[in-house]
């Protein structure tokens, strides 16, 4: 058969293109994920090039490490209990009862999740440190010699972490409560069960998988948190695994410090993987699938005489756990000197002026963080589109692997990702080093946050039936044009959500930056952290307050502009 030469060429070029494309995708995945994490394993299980389990045994043989492991689990258990209790109760009150001011509560109750955790920890210090406002008030009221409440150590860490994580429960339970088939509950009522009985016998058990899933997420999140235990634990020597790893990495005097830190990371990864496993196991039982039909809208439960007390309860919750630390930060930020009473004559805007105009690192950090946040969210979103598209529409080999590789960091705490990046890039590769540059921070951010846009974009791809772009092709569009004209516009909401979901946490990231920053490469998180370490309380408060305002304002704007189509969590 005769084949025109240009057609033959065409074929070869197409093949070449496809091969190059595949190589490129897996090169990116290798640089971002495979290489750093395999370095972590290699370093954790070897010394000076020869494989050994000595690191692990040495780690497990030291009491302080076991104590840190115990602290991690202890804190996580209590954080989970508190966050689940608060999240479930608040969510039920706000979605299913005739509470007053529900629309207001709905927005306000997720605020703690929007504020970066280390900022929360700092804000709580203003309330509960030995010179904090709560303590001062209590000492004044009861004529006490010493401050009655303490923020440093396990209780502080547990409280602040629980406040940071309960919105995760609140949001997922609210979604589940809104989806539950109302006739499940009505059927029980017809069967003779009163309102409380319906909640006990039907609502709670049907919600159990959702509650369990949320609990696992909170538990894993809590074990991988760094900012809160760093600020509230390290000063008093109350260490958890993440802070312990952090200290190991920094202690260059210790022999094999990287090997030991890597070995310790295995413990954290183990907890994360175990959590994922439990979650998969719990949701595997299909028996709990909630079959929903024609939704008639769920019934709202009349709280009756409890309506006012319940509303007051939620208001008090908000005042104590959300408003109080912010107000404390505001007061500190506008006070002239530490320890002055909050009186009009003692107020000033000098702290803001000082922070913004007299500390050069601040503007540098803001520039760096904005640069990183914009670039990282854009790159992750673009990569997500390519990855999801490849996984769904092409036939290249190994496309199923992409999702697994990208999802891996979900079970890996930020501190461990940071360590992996150090191990991967500390020595120049081919005479080329990114260590001590902003690029290593960027790569680490990409690896850590990749999963957010990956999820939203994949979810939007899933909703698009193949026939939509096929119809465009039938209408004469090339495959590329069909993708541009049909597919991309349809996944836009997922793209925006994904971008924003990366931008917000990247802007105030601490865990990775604190491990990877170098002089002149500070981020906002690093700057705030270092300022707290230097005891610049007034200036830190001013900066923290600015961050809180910017973060909340951005969230509010995005909510408004997108008419709630872009979710913040």
């Amino acid at each position, binding site marked *: 058969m005769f084949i025109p030469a240009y057609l033959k060429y065409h074929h070869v070029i197409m093949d070449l293109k496809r091969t190059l494309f595949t190589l490129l995708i897996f090169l990116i995945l290798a640089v971002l994920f495979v290489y750093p994490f395999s370095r972590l394993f290699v370093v954790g299980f070897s010394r000076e090039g020869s494989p050994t389990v000595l690191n692990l045994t040495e780690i497990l043989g030291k009491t302080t490490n076991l104590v840190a492991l115990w602290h991690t689990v202890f804190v996580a258990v209590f954080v989970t209990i508190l966050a689940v209790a608060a999240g479930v109760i608040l969510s039920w009150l706000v979605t299913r009862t005739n509470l007053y001011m529900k629309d207001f509560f709905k927005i306000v109750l997720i605020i703690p999740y929007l504020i970066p955790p280390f900022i929360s920890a700092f804000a709580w210090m203003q309330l509960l440190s030995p010179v904090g406002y709560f303590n001062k008030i209590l000492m004044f009221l009861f004529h006490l010699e010493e401050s009655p409440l303490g923020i440093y150590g396990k209780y502080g860490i547990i409280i602040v972490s629980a406040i940071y994580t309960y919105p995760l429960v609140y949001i997922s339970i609210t979604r589940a409560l809104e989806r539950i*088939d109302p006739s499940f509950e009505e059927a029980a009522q017809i069967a003779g069960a009163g309102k409380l009985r319906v909640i006990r016998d039907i609502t709670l058990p049907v919600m159990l998988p959702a509650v369990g899933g949320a609990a696992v997420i909170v538990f894993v999140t809590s074990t991988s948190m760094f900012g809160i235990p760093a600020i509230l634990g390290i000063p008093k020597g109350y260490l958890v695994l993440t802070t312990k790893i952090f200290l190991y990495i920094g202690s260059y005097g210790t022999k094999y410090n990287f090997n030991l830190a890597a070995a310790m990371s295995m413990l954290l990864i183990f907890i994360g993987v175990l959590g994922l496993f439990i979650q998969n196991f719990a949701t595997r039982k299909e*028996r709990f699938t909630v079959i929903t039909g024609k939704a008639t809208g769920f019934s709202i439960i009349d709280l009756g005489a409890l309506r006012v007390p319940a509303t007051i309860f939620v208001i008090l919750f908000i005042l104590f756990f959300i408003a109080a630390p912010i107000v404390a930060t505001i007061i500190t930020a506008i006070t002239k000197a530490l320890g002055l009473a909050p009186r009009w004559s003692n107020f000033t805007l000098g702290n803001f002026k000082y922070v913004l105009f007299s500390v050069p690192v601040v503007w540098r950090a803001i520039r760096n963080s904005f640069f990183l946040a914009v670039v990282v969210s854009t790159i992750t979103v673009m990569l997500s589109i390519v990855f999801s598209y490849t996984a769904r529409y092409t036939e290249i080999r190994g496309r199923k692997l992409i999702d697994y590789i990208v999802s891996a960091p979900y079970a890996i705490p930020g501190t461990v990702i940071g360590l992996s990046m150090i191990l991967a890039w500390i020595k120049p590769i081919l005479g080329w080093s990114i260590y001590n540059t902003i690029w290593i921070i960027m790569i680490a951010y990409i690896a850590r946050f990749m999963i957010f846009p990956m999820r939203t974009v994949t979810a939007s791809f899933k909703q698009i039936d193949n026939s939509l772009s096929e119809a465009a092709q039938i209408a004469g569009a090339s495959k590329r044009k069909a993708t541009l004209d049909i597919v991309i516009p349809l996944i836009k909401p997922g793209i925006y959500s994904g971008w924003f979901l990366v931008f917000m946490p990247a802007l105030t990231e601490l865990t990775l930056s604190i491990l990877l920053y170098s002089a002149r490469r500070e981020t906002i998180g690093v700057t705030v952290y270092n300022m707290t370490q230097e005891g610049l309380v007034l200036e830190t408060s001013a900066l923290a307050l600015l961050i809180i305002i910017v973060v909340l304002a951005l969230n509010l704007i995005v909510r408004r502009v997108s008419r709630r189509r872009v979710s913040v969590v």
Partner: protein
Amino acid sequence: MAGVVVQDVTKMFGQTVAVQDFSVEIKDGEFFTLLGPSGCGKTTLLRCIAGFAHVTKGKIFIGDRLVSSEDQRGFIPPEKRNLGMVFQTYAVWPHMNVFRNIAYPLKVKRFPERELRERVNIILHLVKLDKLEGRYPNELSGGQQQRVALGRALIMNPDVLLLDEPLSNLDAKLREEMRFELKELQNRIDVTIVYVTHDQSEAMAMSDRIVVMEQGRVHQIGTPSEIYKKPKNQFVASFIGKSNFLRAALLDVKDGILRLKIGSSGIIEVKWRGHMTGEEVILMVRQHNVEIFKKKRENTLPARVKLSTYLGDQFIYEIAVDRDTIRAQVHEEHHYSEGDEVYVRLRNPILFQ
């Protein structure tokens, strides 16, 4: 067992009127059906009877107990009304197995373990789920789930059984089967049934009496044959059975015989006992009451075959009569082709003003 009395009930959702001035007396032990097009307020009325919706106006009695009225004080909540209900989505609880689903109403009433087991076993047998008591809902077919819902509704010997389109989620064959099973079940256990459907053949096959409703209002209440044979108005006639409507001019009335002129095509005589005045009337005739002839006969109208459809055991013809088009359903061997000039006779017509 108890009857249900609905007295002048109006139910509004904000500005939307879902049920309006609705009155009906459902007798003890009756199989009573609420029939009407989608959105006419059937579910809303049922939920008022169940107590999930508060009436805006009017009263509802179950037995001789006032359960709902516009002033909320006498309101009796659903759990105290001694009802059984099968929801459209079945609402079989996913976290309980078949046994526990059915036993739940007894559990709430704290029945002793032995009696509970006995009664559940009787019900399991009644709804033919003997072997499946340990299964979870996701391991059941649609029909089986529906039986669980039914068993759960029956176990407390409810005064009234409320069924909201219980068959609409089943496939055609199973639906047919369940019709008979439901009917037979009622004969065995003597319970008042209020049944909601928008499927007229379902309503005809099962009910003792039917209320035909539209936009929250009652059109007609009666036995299936009353509603079929003596529809009160055009809406009922069009909703029940397959009907044709023709406009006619009333020429004169003599000894109960009306002479009607259909367009310009011809004049027919109709026997009609009711009172008719005015110049225009609407003539309704069922599709199977249209006879077709090749030649002109007494009391026929000239017509032309527009379309013929073969359905295996019968033909459906679309026939032009003057400017209107009617449909005829005939079993005859003789076949007419499209374009044939024919004559039609309209048997048992019903006239509306």
